[in-house]
């Protein structure tokens, strides 16, 4: 089990301050935008950087002051960091060799891992002659060969192309689970984090903003920023919040949205947002006599919108809608089944069930930029 307790480090212009707990054999994904401090967090855990204060506890041992080689923490680097002057076999066997294992043991470990990774035929090759995917596998095998208590992965898939990246991410997760070691995987790719992790740590400006199981975090993002970063669905600034605490109703620029009971915003109304998942809505056609008119503001969770664009993503129909009642030309994207195919410029009613709407603390990123 890994515990980061008030881990602090500051650099000129940036400070990192993190608390985190990861269970045994659990895979955690540290998810956040570029510059949020994800890689720095990993480097602190690995001992490649030193914290100003705080503790790093691994399986009950305080490893904060240990040099990297004595922490029992392995790392897969973004550029794989293979030793260019060593063969693949020597790369994989490096950790066991440093640990003083016999030649026979090193050979056995190397062969087992190479077989498991499907890189047996590469053992006598040098890193320069390997493809990106092969390097990635060698790097993971090298890390696992040292039997670390914790594996750190610093965006190891980011330099690979889309198809290979998707294939390898499930492979990496499977190998890590097979090895049974806990892992912390840094990425800025939401889909990658969802695919690999048991638990996601959302990182923003040097702090862990939220953490939780992937699905829960996606369905109920903890803040407007988290919802916007994870691209869960539209995040709309709320003008005011009315209704009962167990049945809040948010007023937005184009109408009223009734929300689920569990959602709450402690901040003042001007600093709250409304959120609904992109696939939460349904489209209904509008009667001929009402075309071109906005619905009354009192009609809740039903908005007359103009279809700006609609295209197939292969799995759904992504549709850009702009509510007619919106004074500020607001628009947002929704996903519908492929069978729904509205024409560009068509006027439709968007209906969103109350149970899928939530109130979030904070404003969407565009509003913050405007403010």
């Amino acid at each position, binding site marked *: 089990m890994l515990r980061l307790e008030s881990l602090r480090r500051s650099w000129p212009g940036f400070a990192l301050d993190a608390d985190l707990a990861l269970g045994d054999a659990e895979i955690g994904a540290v998810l956040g935008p570029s510059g949020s401090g994800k890689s720095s967090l990993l480097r602190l855990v*690995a*001992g*490649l950087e*030193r*914290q*100003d*204060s*705080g503790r790093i506890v691994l399986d009950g041992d305080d490893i*904060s*002051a*240990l*040099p*990297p*080689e*004595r*922490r029992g*923490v*392995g*790392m897969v*680097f*973004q*550029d*794989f*960091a*293979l*030793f*260019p*002057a*060593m063969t693949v076999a020597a790369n994989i066997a*490096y*950790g066991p060799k*440093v*640990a003083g294992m016999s030649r026979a043991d090193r050979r056995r470990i190397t062969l087992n891992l190479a077989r498991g990774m499907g890189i047996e035929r590469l053992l006598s*090759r*040098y*890193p*320069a*002659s390997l493809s990106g995917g092969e390097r990635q596998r060698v790097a993971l095998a*090298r*890390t696992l060969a*040292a039997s*670390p208590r914790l594996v*750190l992965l610093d965006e190891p898939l980011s330099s690979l192309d889309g198809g290979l990246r998707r294939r390898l991410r499930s492979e990496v997760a499977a190998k890590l689970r097979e090895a049974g070691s806990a892992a912390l995987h840094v990425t800025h790719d939401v889909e990658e984090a969802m695919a690999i992790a048991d638990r996601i740590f959302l990182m923003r400006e040097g702090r862990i903003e939220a953490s939780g199981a992937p699905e829960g975090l996606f369905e109920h993002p903890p803040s407007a920023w988290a919802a916007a970063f994870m691209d869960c669905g539209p995040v709309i600034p709320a003008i005011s919040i009315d209704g009962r605490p167990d049945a809040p109703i948010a007023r937005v620029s184009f109408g009223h949205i009734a929300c689920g009971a569990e959602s709450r915003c402690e901040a003042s109304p001007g600093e709250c947002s409304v959120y609904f998942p992109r696939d939460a809505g349904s489209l209904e056609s509008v009667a001929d006599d009402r075309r071109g008119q906005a619905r009354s503001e009192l009609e809740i969770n039903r908005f007359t919108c103009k279809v700006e664009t609609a295209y197939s993503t292969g799995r759904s129909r992504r549709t850009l809608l702009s509510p007619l009642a919106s004074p500020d030309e607001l628009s947002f994207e929704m996903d519908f089944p492929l069978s729904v195919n509205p024409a560009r410029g068509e006027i439709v009613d968007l209906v969103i069930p109350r149970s899928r709407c939530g109130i979030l603390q904070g404003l969407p990123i565009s509003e913050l930029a405007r403010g």
Partner: protein
Amino acid sequence: MNTAAPGRQGGRLVSRLALLALAAASIAPLAALALSGNEGGLVSGLKSTLSQARFYRSLAFTLSQALASTIAALVIGLPGAALVARYRFPGRKALKAISVFPFSMPSVLVVLAFVLYYGRSGVLNRFLMQVFGLSEPPIGFLYSFWGIVLVHGFYEFPLILQIVGEAWSSLPRDTERAARLLGAGRLRAFATGTLPSLAPAIAHSAGIVFLLCFFSFAVVMIFGSLSGSTLEVEVYRRARFEADPSGAAAIAMVETLIAVAIVAAIGLSDRRAAALKSAGSPPELVRPRGAARVGLAAYAVFIAFFFLGPLVSLVGQAFSVRGSPLAPPRIGLGNFEKILSGPKASFLPALADTASTAIPAALIAVVVGSIGALSLRRGGPLARSAAALPMAVSGIVASLGWSAIFPVGGTFLVPLAQSLGALPYVLKSVASSLASLEASPLEAARTLGAGRVRAAFDVELRGVASAIGAAFAFALAVAAGDVNVPLVLGRDGYEPLPVLLYRLIGAYRLQEACAVGVLLGALSSLAFFLSDRRRPRA
């Protein structure tokens, strides 16, 4: 709670100690020389030396010949750099390869080649006298200021060609093209788009050539006896022949101070070059057309005539034998037989003497230089200054300094002094190879359980093994070709190849000297060839 680990501080301490040792290696001989300046000490030595007109004549001569030689090297080297950087032509690789010339060819050998070619009874004069029916040789400036400048110009221009050519060929041409599209003419576009990025490389190479000419010794000893002497020759003469150690120490101090200023200026141009490093892919080479074609042909003829001519005549002389003084020369191996197996066979003992000092010198330079380069990678500006110091201490000054530290003397001092001369090249070569290594494999080794020192050996040193091999060959050739240190520190019975050459030239046994020179040149070239083949695997 501050959690800086003791291991980290230990590592820093080791690298600081390494740099301190590096700085001490250059400062110790200098300090010893200053302190050995006997009775009156350094201050009175400085006072009396600085009041002598002879010192100022020598200073003026040193600076003016170095400046004129640098300009000559620039004039010869820059057109070559432009051609190598822009055009694809047969012989381009050969032109780039002559950059090793100043290092692989001992200065004494170059002097010999120039005497044979440009001397009063040299190839060129005989050719001109025959063609124009002259009774007197038309070229007679070899043993003068301009002779020194000519030799230096041809000896050092390959450095300009290599450094500027390399910088030029890696410059993206887009800035120059952008200037053309904005309406600038060809020349103006070059001045706006290319020259500013190239200027640091020109300044850097010119600085190095200036420093090498500033320290010139053998060339000045042979050609400059009538026109003047450099500070380096002055130090040697005062220490060796005039029993004036405090004068020698005083001049050595002034010489080193000026050299430190030159090294600092070179360092500044390096920093500027790093700041100007432009991104973008280097341009494709094109085939020369029109004026470029004519320019290339003219340059090829010029280099063949003035640069290769002396070398060819040296090889020619080595293989030319005469039955009697009046008999016409013929091709044969007589000269080689004389030096290899005759009663005065001198080559093999000289080769053994060379090996006995050059190999330890190269080893010292490589070990100290590699550790220094590793430390330099982790050090700041102070470390860089410490590493640059050996450049500012000349061979003669280092030799005199070491013999002041060990007054008993002996050939064991030769490798110590020679290693200092080779150190800057080793440092530069290993440091630039280290700089091209990524940091992450080193960190990966740490996370895989290797300590700081083991990671440095396994990853960094292994990664630069080929550069270290090349640096060893380089250091070996520099030490094997050095005449300055053996002249100062040599004892009876110790005569390495350059000293043998020097003696043969002095005794006018030029053909034997040529044979020695050809063998020495072949050995140096072989060392370079082997080092060049050691490329990283995969």
